[in-house]
């Protein structure tokens, strides 16, 4: 590809930043119009209770309160959907529990919404919510998965007779058992993947309005795709999608969690229609902890069968996935997605996996950065280290021995996926070399002299991104000579305005300021599948590249008449079409004014659907020190060598990787949702939920060793989640390596000083 000043591969600064660093970003809560009413949701303080709202008159009498709504007021509104019910071994699909927009008769987790109060101010709405008379009859609750699957556990959904929703399986159990029976070594680990809260810095917010004249609704919110939101919310409300206009302005972080349809959206729209008013709701931080889906929360048993040389013969995984009280949009599919990536970068021909989603009286769980793949990679890389330890093999040697080799590509996994390309050992060797793995012993000795336990650990991961749906979009030459991109993905902070402008600049050689990217408007942009699964660049940019190349040809065609030259003699240089080797040229602005430059000829539409996922992969190396006196961990070095196929913008790419690692380190060492045995949420503020701060994170050395993907024309692989996938096992393997000097072979996340301290004793 020809290097262009602002084009693909350039580390250009972001065009979004000027507005963001000056405070002119437009987030939902910044857009609440004067006079809008405010909504507040009354939420259950109990994990499980029957309830009756006995009186709302006092609430309605609170000054400023305009309406108090309970479940009965929304009889015509449908339930929140779960679009991913899983089948059992016989193909019988699990039953879906109802997920009403407001709880009726029973609340099933702390934070379950029971009423909505609308008032002129948020304060008055809160006062109204406090004045609602409500009788709770507490029921036994269960928050822990081990307890939930035990006999006699309180049932979240009594009609199902069990808290286990289904047992979904993959692979041939008998065949797998046979391999295990004859294996020289069997190594097993039991791993907790702790529950996390997304904690995007912008809490969710929504502004709903209704136009009685047209019957049209508008929802302004921060989501991960206006079209998906529109489709689902319209379906819940029982209206035509065309009647709902969804708008996103700037979105302050999403991480998967902002991608779901939440109950507040249809409720606010319905209330806006009933009251004929614009209604705004802004979640506060504590509400985020109970109203937005949580992430992770798996218990996994994984077992490897090995031969005498340490070759992996077969893998078994048994996953319990905490669903929370209701099934969020993709909930049971998330651990299943992990099952499909269970064999990772290794050549393991026999596999059996079982995944059981479990109901508990906790906040629903759904996709969070990585969604199933971090869980899978964490289990596998912990298991591989355990294998190395058991067999007395070097950790790099056992990996190298078992990696899928480049010569085996395309490689079909025992879980049914096809890896197109990948050089896993190459990335591992490069990462270890950069991390000076060979020189570790000397550093370890220096630490030991100071009484510190030093460890180094690494993880080789592979993940899947950008599978499934495609993207259609367009680029057009505007009348003023600038360009407009319409696309249905949604930046949540990744810098799409910059990345997409670079793709256009690659074909049309214009500065990025001349490319306007329009996203987040379901009327302006015809269709889209939003952002998630790291798809926006591998699908969106691949599509936009086609559109831009197409437009370049169209513009040359328009220019060829004026310049009296054949299209094949024309080049595009610095915003002009020029006859190669001459100074005869016409600018884009001039082309736009040509009589023949009809809107159709100035517009190029393209669509791209990936035939298969892309498979980013790489190795993370972490080096750390543990203070045995206190259990405190200090991260010393962090090295990453990743294969993202192609680097569209190295600056943005590094940003994605760093951010993902920060979340992975947070999960490994600091973060964890804490429920007590009665389902009471104990960690619902930043004081009690330990977010990583600047001091907690190291600086990183990141480099790429790209092997272009063959599933999209630009060779791209998705990079939004990889950081969170490689990091937890790298950190934990390093930690266990450090602690192994004192005989510790297992510790679960989050490895807090208290846990480490206990493990050392």
């Amino acid at each position, binding site marked *: 590809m020809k290097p262009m000043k602002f084009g693909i591969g350039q580390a250009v*600064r*972001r065009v979004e*930043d*000027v507005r*963001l*660093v*000056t*405070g*002119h*970003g437009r987030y939902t*809560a910044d857009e609440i119009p004067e006079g809008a009413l405010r909504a507040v949701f009354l939420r259950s303080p109990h994990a499980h209770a029957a309830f009756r709202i006995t009186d709302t008159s006092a609430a309605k009498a609170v000054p400023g309160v305009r309406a108090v709504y309970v479940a009965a007021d929304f009889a015509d509104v449908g339930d929140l959907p779960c679009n991913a019910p899983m089948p059992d071994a016989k193909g019988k699909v699990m039953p879906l529990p109802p997920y009403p927009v407001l709880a009726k008769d029973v609340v099933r987790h702390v934070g379950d919404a029971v009423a909505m109060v609308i008032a002129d101010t948020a304060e008055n709405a*809160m006062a109204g919510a406090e004045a609602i008379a409500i009788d709770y009859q507490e029921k036994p609750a269960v928050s822990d998965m081990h307890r939930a699957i035990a006999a006699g556990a309180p049932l979240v959904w009594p009609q199902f007779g069990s808290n286990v929703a289904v047992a979904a399986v993959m692979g041939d159990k008998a065949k797998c058992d046979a391999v295990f029976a004859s294996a020289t070594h069997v190594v097993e680990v039991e791993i907790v993947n702790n529950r996390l809260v*997304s904690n*995007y*810095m*912008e*809490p969710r917010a929504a502004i709903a309005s209704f136009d009685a004249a047209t019957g049209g609704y508008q929802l302004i919110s921060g989501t991960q795709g206006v079209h998906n939101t529109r489709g689902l919310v319209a379906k819940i409300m029982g209206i035509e999608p065309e009647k709902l206009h969804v708008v996103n302005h*700037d*979105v*302050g*972080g*999403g991480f998967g969690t902002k991608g779901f349809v939440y109950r507040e959206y249809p409720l606010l729209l319905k209330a806006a229609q009933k009251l004929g008013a614009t209604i705004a709701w*802004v979640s*506060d*931080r*504590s509400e985020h902890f109970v109203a937005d889906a949580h992430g992770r929360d798996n218990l996994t048993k994984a077992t490897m069968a090995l031969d005498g040389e340490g070759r992996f013969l077969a893998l078994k995984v048994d996953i319990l996935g905490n669903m929370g009280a209701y099934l969020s949009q993709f909930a049971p599919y998330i651990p299943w997605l992990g099952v499909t990536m269970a064999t990772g970068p290794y050549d393991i021909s026999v596999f059996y996996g079982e995944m059981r989603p479990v109901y508990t009286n906790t906040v629903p769980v759904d996709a969070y950065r990585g969604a199933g793949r971090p869980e899978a990679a964490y289990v596998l890389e912990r298991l591989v280290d355990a294998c190395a330890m058991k067999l007395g093999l070097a950790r790099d040697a056992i990996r190298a021995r078992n990696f899928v080799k480049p010569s085996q590509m395309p490689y079909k996994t025992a879980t049914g996926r096809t890896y197109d390309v990948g050089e896993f050992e190459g990335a591992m060797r490069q990462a270890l070399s950069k991390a000076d793995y060979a020189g570790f012993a000397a550093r370890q000795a220096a630490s030991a002299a100071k009484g510190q336990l030093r460890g180094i650990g690494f993880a080789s991961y592979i993940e899947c991104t950008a599978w499934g749906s495609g993207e259609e979009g367009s680029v057009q030459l505007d009348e003023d000579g600038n360009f407009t991109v319409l696309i249905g993905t949604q930046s949540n*902070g*990744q*810098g799409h305005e910059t990345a997409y402008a670079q793709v256009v600049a690659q074909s049309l050689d214009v500065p990025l300021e001349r490319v306007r990217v329009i996203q987040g408007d379901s009327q302006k942009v015809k269709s889209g599948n939003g952002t998630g699964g790291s798809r926006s660049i591998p699908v969106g940019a691949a599509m936009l590249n086609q559109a831009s190349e197409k437009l370049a040809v169209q513009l040359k065609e328009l220019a060829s008449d004026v310049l009296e030259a054949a299209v094949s003699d024309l080049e595009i240089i610095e915003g002009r079409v020029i006859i190669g080797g001459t100074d005869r040229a016409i600018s884009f602005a001039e082309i736009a004014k040509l009589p023949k430059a009809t809107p159709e000829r100035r517009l190029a539409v393209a669509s791209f659907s990936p035939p298969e996922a892309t498979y980013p992969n790489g190795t993370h190396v972490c080096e750390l020190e543990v203070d045995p*006196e*206190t259990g405190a961990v200090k991260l010393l070095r962090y090295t990453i060598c990743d294969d993202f196929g192609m680097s569209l913008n190295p*600056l*943005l790419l590094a*940003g994605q990787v*760093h*951010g993902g690692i*920060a*979340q992975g380190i947070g999960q490994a060492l600091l973060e964890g949702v*804490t429920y007590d045995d009665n389902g009471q949420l*104990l*960690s619902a*503020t*930043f*004081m*009690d939920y*330990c*977010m*990583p*701060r*600047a*001091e*907690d*994170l190291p*600086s*990183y050395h990141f480099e790429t060793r790209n092997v272009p993907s063959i599933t999209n024309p630009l060779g791209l692989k998705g990079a939004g989640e990889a950081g969170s996938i490689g990091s937890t096992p790298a950190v934990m393997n390093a930690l266990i390596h450090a602690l192994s000097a004192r005989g510790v072979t297992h510790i679960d996340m989050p490895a*807090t*000083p*208290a846990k480490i301290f*206990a493990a050392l*004793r």
Partner: protein
Amino acid sequence: MRDAVRFMLGDELVRVSGISASLSVLDWLRGTARLTGTKEGCNEGDCGACTIVLVRPRHGRLDYRAVNACTLLVGMLDGAQVLTVEHLADGARLHMVQQAMVDAHGSQCGFCTPGFVMSLYARAKQPKSERVDAAEALAGNLCRCTGYAPIIRAAAMIDAHEAPDQWDRRSKETLARLEALHDGTTLCLGDGDTCFMAPASEDELAHLLVQHAGGKDAGRPTLVAGNTDVGLWINKKLMRLDPIFWLGGIDSLKQIAESNDHIEIGAGVTYSEAQAKLVGLFPETGALITRIGGVQVRNSGTVVGNIANGSPIGDMSPLLLAAGASLGLRRGEHRRKLALDEFFLSYGVQDRAPDEFITHVSVPRLKPGAVLKAWKISKRADQDISCVMMAVWLDYDGARINDIRLAFGGMAGVVCRARACEARLRGGPWTRQTLAAAQAQLREELQPISDMRASAGYRLDVACNLLERLYIETVERAPTRLPDASLA
């Protein structure tokens, strides 16, 4: 009395009256002034998305401080200049701090960015010799997207390329305008329903409190200094506080008085202001004192306020308890002195009448041969609540313990001393044997609770280990004492 708070918003002089006593600066900025660049990320002073910079005259020059707008009440802006993220760019030209954030790719989703920009800006305004390292300056700001490293790089870029900005060029004029606002009158701000009082003198405060207590249907007055804790009662517990008395208008309470044997820290002195003095008094606690809260919290919160609210996990109280500090209290014309030990009665209860206020805390200097050490054990270095905090004052001659005070936070419903353990140690030889006896005594004496932060067993183990650390640092490794980077 004046019924309007007066401050500069950027370059504009603003007078605000007729507002609720508990209206936060964040809500006022976003709602009334429509400056929405300042964000609400948590509304409890933990995330820093609402960081703004307050500029006040100090020793004849302008002092720039990053503070959280969410726990700041509008009345507390009296006499200050408020700078928000919207005030930094000079026309279309980005401020150097903003440009550094762009160049380092320090912003992704952008929601936390205004807070980071303002924290970096305030840091850049400190004289280079006083500038803390970037990670420390940013400890009060959360970012979920970047992993912080790019923002740390932005800080380094700022340090490398600084030049006066438009506010520096106007500093003389701003100083004069702010000094003119300092009129020595008491501010009484309210909406008819609630009242925010900012007395102009200590006498006025004493008088008003007693007068209020004698009034009919008088609500219990809430004394506020930095509002870093009371702000949460307002934002999170939705408590209606009336009246609020703010100590920040009283110059005499902002003094640190020094004598040969002690220093007196006034009730209006912030952590940031007291920090250097305290580190000077107790050099071995430096790592702890300089890392209480984040910068924003230290710039608002006061040493006395942290004591006055009686939190069992306050960081300052164990330290001052071990140091042998005492409080000065005043009620009307009556003044009394109280040993800090006697102030904490039980969980949530302190020995202070509703119309009484603490004027200062008096901290004795270390006598020769004595040391004061303190360790805080928490999950995270910054902005975290202690699982265990231990502070110890030790007077020893190398072999024998002449006297000792051991104070703990996080081990009971109040900050407490381990007196039985002290008795075990006092007068004894400072040996491993004495240590073991003291540890056993500690296990008997302290009955911490288990909560999500730590189990009772962990707390006891850590407390005993900290005692051992004390032994190691003062005996076994005494000649070359460990550096004080003892935050865990």
